[in-house]
């Protein structure tokens, strides 16, 4: 279902404007096409219409949270193959587990520097297709 695009399309779902625009700017700077959504409902709509190459999903969202949105994306035939990278400020084990159960392909803890995020996205996109879903991605938690 992949569209042949010059640049891979990244759907950035983030309610905090500064962060959303920062990631969008850096992704564009790094050679990605970017679409934005501010809540779960919007994220699903955009994902269904745009069919992005990858979704960057903040988990704490208004209207519909990231976990629910991810579950819906993964249960929809049109969107179920799109990798989802979860983004959370909570470094709790429960959050990562919940995200994995919801169907996220990777898990990134905020604060996450833009280039770290970009490298994670690249890693997922470079992954050979047909990789079993729900396989845990590498935890990129950083300290100190």
């Amino acid at each position: 279902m992949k569209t042949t695009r010059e640049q891979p399309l990244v759907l950035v779902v983030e309610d905090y404007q500064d962060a959303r625009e920062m990631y969008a700017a850096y992704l564009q700077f790094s050679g990605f096409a970017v679409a934005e959504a501010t809540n779960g409902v919007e994220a699903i709509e955009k994902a269904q219409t745009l069919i992005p190459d990858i979704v960057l999903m903040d988990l704490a969202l208004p209207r519909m949270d990231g976990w629910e949105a991810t579950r819906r994306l993964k249960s929809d035939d049109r969107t179920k193959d799109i990798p989802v990278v979860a983004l959370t400020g909570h470094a709790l084990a429960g959050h990562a587990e919940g995200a994995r159960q919801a169907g996220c392909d990777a898990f990134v803890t905020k604060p996450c520097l833009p280039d770290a995020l970009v490298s994670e996205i690249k890693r997922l996109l470079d992954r050979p297709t047909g990789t079993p879903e729900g396989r845990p991605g590498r935890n990129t938690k950083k300290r100190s």
Partner: protein
Amino acid sequence: MPRASAPMPMESVSSIEAEAKLALIEFLLTSMDMQESARRAVDWLVAHAPVEQAVVVIVETVSNEMLLVAEHGVSTGVIMDFALSRDDTKHPLVQALSSSEPVFISSLPAHFRAPIDARAFHVIPLRAEMHEPGQGLLLASAVSPQIDSETLWLGRTLGKQVSRLLSRQLLAETRFGQERMLLYSIINAVTDPILLTDTEGKLIIANSHAEKLFAAPEDSSEGWRRAVGLNNMLFSAALSTSAVGMSELARRELLLVDPLEGSDLLFELLSSRAKDERQGTFVVSILRNVTDLARAKEEIEESYRTLRVAQAEVRDERHRLDLIIDSVADPILVTDQEGDIVLMNTPAERLFSPLPGAEMDAALRRVRANGANLTSFVSNVLTRSGEQRYRGEIQLADPVTGRPLPVEALAGTILSEQGELMWVVTILHDLTEALEKGKLYEQLKHASEQLERKVQEATAELAEQNELLRRQHIELEQASQLKSQFLANMSHEFRTPLNAILGYTHMLLNNVTGQVTEPQRKSLSRIDSNSRHLLALINDILDITRIEAGRMPLNVTSFVVGDLVREVMAELEPIIRRSNLTVTSKAKTPLPNLRSDRQKVKQIVLNLLSNALKFTPAGSVTIQATYDRRAKQMAIAVKDTGVGIPLADQAKVFEDFRQLDSSPTRGYGGTGLGLSICRRLSQMLGGTIDLASVPGQGSTFTLRLPARPRRR
């Protein structure tokens, strides 16, 4: 007396016979007494001839009466009945007087009497010469019609003696002799021993019964003779003591010995003095056998004594019973079927007897009232004859003070052997004390109840306070949780803006918005490093908060320590490369796998290594893992050759926000929470972190963990 049965040699026999005859003749020659001579002759005859009965009869020349002077073996009745005159010429005995030969009478015609019991007897006339008429007769019981020579000899000898004596003797003497003989016969007939003695107790005449006691035959046994000797002695002694001042009949007891049986015989001795002008004073003694009497008397005395003892015992028993009853403090009364008091002890007397001498009306009235109350109680008992025990309460009054005296009465009935009610025994027990005790008990119970109520109140209050404390505790816990939650949320909220700051700084530094100048880059770098420091602080605070809130779950797995160390070193590779330090890892192989929370162990080791790198300007850092098999403990030591920590400060490094150089411009980065978190984490895992350090030489931090987590 039977003769010796053994035959003797002839010469010897005749010599003994001759001697006996000679002795008799000698006696007769010296004797002047007819009676004596005749008696001696009869005794000789009975002893030496086959004669059992013998009688000597003398003719009194004046009256022609035939008189008996001696006899042997003839019954008294025959002697007393005998009376014959010489004038009765038809009588065979009178005819025999003139016979020249001894006459044998086989049986006397019925109308004639002879002074002898034997049917057949020889009659020998007594005379000096054969041709003379007989002056007397010797009658001897016959065994055959033929007279024996011994009897013939004696007849001749005695005839000569009679003739000799009659020529001199007075007639009266002959008569006296007969009377004396009669008397002697009578004395013999008496069953009690009779003796005639002189005042010294020397025997003059004794009847046959007395002879048994006081005279021993010549051929008697030694024991017999000794007994007789003893009896004579005892008799003389008794007589001599009773003779003193004795003129009347003396009566005394005398203990003698039965010579044949050897047993004791008790006699009553009656003795009186008889005076004879010719021969002096004699003592006549009659002995009455009282042995059986004495024995009976003794028995009576014994039974009397027993009776006395029994009476004394009964008296003692009664006395003891009285003592016992009186010693009981409670009043005891015994009443008969009519309800009348028959017995009571001293305490009962105080209640039911009028006081002696006290005329107090009130006291008397109370005593009567007490008695009436008791009577009604006893009558109750009597109507309930079926029961052995009866219990009741009676209201009495102290006779003296009038104080009410409630008593408990316990009555028992005593039945006769026929089952009739004989007595009622009643014991009274003063209830005053019991009632007072009851009152006290009630008071005590009341007080106890009050106390219990107070205790309950206090307990309730305490429980309420406990509940309050429990709630406060829960509230505090909730508050603490809220605080932790708040801190967790806050750190999250910090992160969002910080994320943006770090991101934009990063973008600027990466020339996303165009090339920055060198002074701008310097400033941006400062913003970047301070932002990172702030992030580290926020992360550490979040960790501590989570540990304290118990929201740091353990995820225990089994892993290889060496791998973990390599991972840590790989993660810090950029810093190691920049530091120019020699960093090595050693492991004493083989190490067992460690069961613990891998992520937390890694966090600790990471922290320790980064600290070591930070505080070591030059030299080396070594990570060494060892396993203590005995303590089952894994140790990971991080050793550096850095600045070191003074001993006094070694404990401080584990405290929150503590770096030894706490100035704002300190030379080392870090939040100052790293070691504090490490220690908390190691404690969570059941382990410890120790520090050994010498300033200027270096420090060694050692993490020790149990090979497998202990249950807590």
